[in-house]
């Protein structure tokens, strides 16, 4: 990828990042906080962030949950279906190490065991402000040009 093209892609990503929300076996608490971040009180749509239904339209994958064994192949498939360049935000403490589900026979204990992660947002569940901060950190990362 030429540096000029890379610059354009980074600029467009920064202006309208479309997200895909994927629940990999979370308890719904993080999911309702992500949804709350989209609604008028917090309103992440002012940054151009929009939830998309198809992985082929999305730039950022927002994963919640400790990744159950049932969801692991689906998570990988969805990650592969997303077009490059793609980023992953892991929301919630159980995405980092499993949290209360650590040691269960049916979870992977962390999203990083299935797919690479760019930004972690810890908290059980993180507040919508924390999720917005996670997005801001990712934008910084994109502007610096890191993968």
């Amino acid at each position, binding site marked *: 990828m030429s540096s000029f093209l890379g610059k354009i892609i980074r600029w467009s990503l920064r202006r309208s990042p479309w997200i895909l929300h*994927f629940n990999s076996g979370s308890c719904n*608490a993080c999911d309702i906080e992500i949804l709350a971040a989209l609604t008028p009180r917090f309103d992440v749509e002012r940054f151009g962030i929009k939830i998309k239904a198809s992985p082929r339209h999305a730039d950022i994958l927002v994963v919640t949950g400790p990744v159950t064994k049932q969801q692991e192949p689906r998570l990988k498939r969805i990650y592969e279906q997303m077009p490059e360049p793609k980023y992953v935000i892991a929301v919630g403490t159980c995405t980092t190490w499993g949290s*209360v589900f650590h040691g269960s026979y*049916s979870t992977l204990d962390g999203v990083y065991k299935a797919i690479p992660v760019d930004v972690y947002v810890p908290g059980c569940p993180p507040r919508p402000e924390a999720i917005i901060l996670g997005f801001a950190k990712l934008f910084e990362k994109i502007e610096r040009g890191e993968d």
Partner: protein
Amino acid sequence: MSIIELIFGPQHPALHEPEMFRFHVDGEKVIEAIPRIGYVHRGIEKLFEQKTHVQNIYLSERICGICNVAHTLTYVNVIERAGDIDVPPRAKYLRVIVAELNRLHSHMLLLGAVAELMGFTTLFMLIWRDREKIMDLVELITGNRVISAYNTIGGVRRDIDSDKADKIRKVLLKVEEEWKEYKKTWMEDPTITRRTMGVGILKPRDALKYCVVGPVLRGSGVKSDVRKDDPYEVYGDIPFNVVTYDTCDSWARYMVRVDEILESINIILYALDNLPQGEIRRPLVRRLPEAEAFAKTEAPRGELVYHLYSKGGFKPYRLKVRTPTFANILGATIMFKGERIADIPVILGSIDPCFACEDRHTIVDLRSGKSFMLSSREITRKFSRGSKP
């Protein structure tokens, strides 16, 4: 026209939870719906046995993040019954207040999300904007917005003073006014009534046959509410109505929730007015005697049941959880029959599905020692033929 199999999920735009439905459709008409559950199975019932009774409060809370207060309430109830622990009356009232706030936020969440499914995004945004007021109250009382660990064995963690009580009263009266307006919208707006009236019929006979619970059962005109039938905490002393609608369609099930929001506000206001003085919790009991206990509560989605078997000591021997969505999903397969594909999200939304709750069961074949998960339909099919599982 031949019958087509339509697969819905596990990753799909309608709900933010993974589950899969296999619909057999003839043109636009759904002939059969086969749920495939288990994507959120996290092995929680096995984890219960590895952790202590106190640690399990936090685990039970994370079965479902939306109705987390209902889960801890039932869990501490079952422990208190097994250990014969007595709870101070003030704590009982505080538990009712937080449980009803939880019901408020859960019903608002569903009604907003369903408005979005129907394409009524304005209503979704308005309801979720007003829901933040309830989240603020939950944060004021418990210290966190969603998962709060408020209930504990022998009482509650935090007390409220008169300032907080006044603030709660003020906000709730405002929310009540707003919901009277929203109720008008849900009753009269053609965007809602034409999408939901007469869609997804569940007759009272079928509702009882398939053992559905909560607002789904009350939407079919059956008067059943654990808070009235088998009062726990102080629901026996608080006057409230059990809301029922008898049109048996999706609209009835949504209206039950709209009216329950107004009832819940009255319950909280009554509990605040009659809050007794005194301590809020007993010293923590860590060890239980050999005992078996059973507790049920009315979670926002229906009857929630915990069954504990303790062999003494710090850890449970077995803790069985039966969640409302697991009971309701079979009823939903009946509602889908004969409806159009476009109505699938509206009908599915009307049972307020919470798949995080229900995906805990596994079936173990003792002969080969293999464990595997089955959908409810596979269970019926396999076991009704009398073949080996």
